[in-house]
């Protein structure tokens, strides 16, 4: 019986780790990282093509590589890693066996087959339709089929996760409520089910269209439903990487939430006000009313944004509280100065938090304003925004988590610890450049998804301002930095998994004191977090100023009505 399955007790954290869960986490994480390497390499080629002085690829190759870049990193890397996170947050954190590991392996196989199929279709050259695959651009049928198989595999992963929660409850492997990190993972999985359902609604007919069984697909319908899939999947990422922030803060510093209620409520807001996420992609499309756009981008009160703003306080707040409990109480920021900046898991997590909030969060809200979208839609500003959210936010958080998983799950020490220590800074710096320079170029009108902004082949030429070319060049240099950070990550992660020194029971470092820090909840026992309040005040000021600066920019364009 599976119930008698083998497990081990992790000596560092005291967590019970079952063999089946461990193997699946390993497999999903390793495959994820391989696809990150592939997709990242394609990304570097994209950035080097858009750097005018280099202009690496010819046009046909550029769109092919851009398609491969988007799919491999935005879909394959992130979702494989998220499945690993789901299994970790259920089986490992609850000390429970994984539900139906064989079916979980079947899901894994489907995802892998799907991912390989997509890549084959794209590399064959007749499926350069980009990540969005907007009709009437037509890809090869196995492109859509690969997409669908991958999604079915991911859906199976979600249900394995839910099943594991049920088993943990029935077998009473924990008492009371699930941990906050698991709760966050639950929100991610619920959003994932909605997302994948939307994906099925749009991709299955498109697949049938590609083999000739459906005659016509309306472009506006496609964009509306596609983004219910395409953007909701970013909401999964947000819920997942915020859970990872809490997880890393807990493992490295023993942080506990300032209040369970507030942090869980903030996760709940993501589910309840998961914006009908297609809305803010359609702000300048014809045939959709302003009322629909305004209501659905904001749900009247921007409550999903409120959820993220709350996490923006509670994550650093929980770190500050943990540090103050340890005695780092001098001034406003001693807790931050004396944080473990040399631990790549912590530094990666904190850099991810800052960049996601300041760059990704603020820009996302601003460009999602109905009218302001007029000066941003489909410019490369959009690309700058989502590199701040998906690369600086999600990818860097997952990289940081990998540094924790290697000793915990793979039971190996990190090779090249010095390189690992520098990696989050290097990668963070590169992504900051990528995001800021692309946003800057976007405000100068540079289009996204464009092979040649010198427009040299056009009959009627147009010259973008020189600053735009400068920004795209700086973007290329930043991409090289981020690429270097990415390569170091891959080398350290893969090298450690296969060649790192095995951690044996005797050698395991007793990081236990962190885990032993327990305190009851309640404001009396939670130290005040003045440093965090200063941080969020700075954030809020930036947010408000930047928001109104963009209204000012908007007011300068031609009157339209």
């Amino acid at each position, binding site marked *: 019986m599976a119930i008698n399955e083998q497990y081990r007790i992790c000596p560092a954290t005291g967590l019970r780790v079952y063999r089946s869960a461990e193997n699946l986490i390993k497999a999903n994480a390793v495959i994820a990282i391989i696809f990150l390497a592939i997709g990242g390499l394609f990304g570097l080629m994209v950035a080097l093509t858009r750097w005018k002085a280099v202009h690496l690829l010819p046009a046909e190759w550029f769109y092919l590589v851009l398609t491969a870049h988007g799919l491999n990193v935005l879909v394959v890397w992130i979702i494989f890693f998220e499945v690993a996170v789901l299994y970790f947050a259920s089986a490992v*954190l609850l000390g429970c066996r994984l539900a139906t590991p064989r079916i979980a392996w079947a899901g894994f196989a489907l995802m892998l087959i799907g991912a390989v199929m997509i890549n084959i279709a794209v590399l064959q050259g007749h499926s350069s339709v980009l990540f969005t695959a*907007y009709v*009437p*651009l037509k890809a090869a049928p196995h492109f859509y089929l690969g997409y669908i198989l991958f999604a079915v595999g991911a859906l199976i992963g979600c249900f394995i996760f839910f099943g594991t929660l049920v088993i943990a409850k029935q077998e009473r492997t*924990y008492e*009371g*409520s699930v*941990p*906050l990190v698991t709760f966050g993972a639950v929100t991610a999985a619920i959003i994932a089910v909605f997302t994948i359902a939307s994906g099925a609604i749009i991709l299955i007919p498109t697949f049938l269209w590609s083999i000739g069984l459906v005659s016509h697909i309306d*472009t*506006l319908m496609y*964009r509306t439903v596609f983004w219910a899939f395409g953007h909701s999947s970013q909401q999964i990422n947000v819920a997942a990487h915020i859970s990872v922030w*809490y997880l890393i803060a*807990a493992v490295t510093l023993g*942080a*506990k*939430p*300032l*209040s*369970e209620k507030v942090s869980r409520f903030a996760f709940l807001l993501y589910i309840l006000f998961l914006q009908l996420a297609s809305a803010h992609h359609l702000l*300048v*499309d*014809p*045939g959709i009313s*302003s009322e629909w756009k*305004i209501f659905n981008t904001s749900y009247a009160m*921007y409550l999903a944004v*409120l959820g993220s703003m*709350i996490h923006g*306080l*509670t994550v650093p*707040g929980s770190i500050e509280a943990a540090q103050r409990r340890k005695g780092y109480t001098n001034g406003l920021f001693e807790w931050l100065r004396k944080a473990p900046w040399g631990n790549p898991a912590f530094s990666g997590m904190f850099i991810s938090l800052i960049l996601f909030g300041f760059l990704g969060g603020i820009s996302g809200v601003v460009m999602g304003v109905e*009218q302001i979208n*007029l*000066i941003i839609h*489909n*410019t490369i500003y959009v690309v700058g925004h989502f590199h701040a959210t998906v690369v600086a936010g999600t990818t860097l958080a997952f990289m940081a988590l990998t540094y924790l998983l290697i000793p915990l799950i793979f039971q190996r020490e990190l090779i090249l610890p010095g390189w690992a220590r520098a990696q989050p800074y290097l990668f963070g710096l590169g992504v900051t450049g990528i995001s800021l320079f692309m946003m800057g170029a976007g*405000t100068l*009108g540079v289009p996204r*998804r464009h*092979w040649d902004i010198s*427009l040299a082949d*056009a*009959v009627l030429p*147009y010259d973008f*301002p020189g600053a735009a070319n400068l920004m795209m060049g700086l973007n290329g240099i930043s991409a090289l930095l981020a690429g270097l950070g990415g390569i170091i990550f891959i080398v350290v992660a893969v090298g450690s998994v296969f060649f790192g020194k095995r951690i044996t029971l005797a050698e395991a470092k007793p990081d236990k004191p962190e885990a032993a820090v*327990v305190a*009851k*909840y309640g*404001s009396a026992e939670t130290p005040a977090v003045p440093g*965090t*309040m200063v941080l969020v005040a700075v954030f809020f000021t930036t947010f*408000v100023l930047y*928001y109104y600066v963009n209204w000012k920019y*908007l*007011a300068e*364009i*031609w*009157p*339209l009505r």
Partner: protein
Amino acid sequence: MSISPPQEKLWWNEPIPKSELIWIIVGFIWGLIMFFMMIYWHAVGEQNLSNEAYRITAEDFAARTNTMIEKYKVRDEAGFPVVHPPPGSDVYLIARLWQWWPILELEKDQSYRLHISSMDWLHGFSLQPVNINLQIHPGYEMVLTAKPDKAGEYGIVCNEFCGIGHHTMVGRMYVIEK
């Protein structure tokens, strides 16, 4: 810790720390302000996208555009007709693989009802350097009233990927002083 079940089983009864409460209130009010800002701009702002759009076939839209071109063509330029329609009139712009057709010549500070539609795939209307961006669909005619307020030569770049010739799809628009 965040990775273990809450210490206090009735965690939902715990009071909320003041720091969090303040931040939630600030965030909530800010959300309301941002929501009403969009509505406010519809009332007083001058840059709002119209809600006017129609379903139309490519043939119909092309026919209307050609009628306008025949009536108001003033010259040719690089193989494109340049059209100078009277202020206040309906002007048409075709997006197709890989052209913006024709070249429009408008007068400064005059309003025009601009109709845009695609003949084939999705395109992105990106008017430079003013940086006005619209999504152009086949089968849908978008109608908006625009009032150019600066004279000059404008480029119309396509910013929605439309196949291998995407980067050659550049149009032109003139705004002249009258």
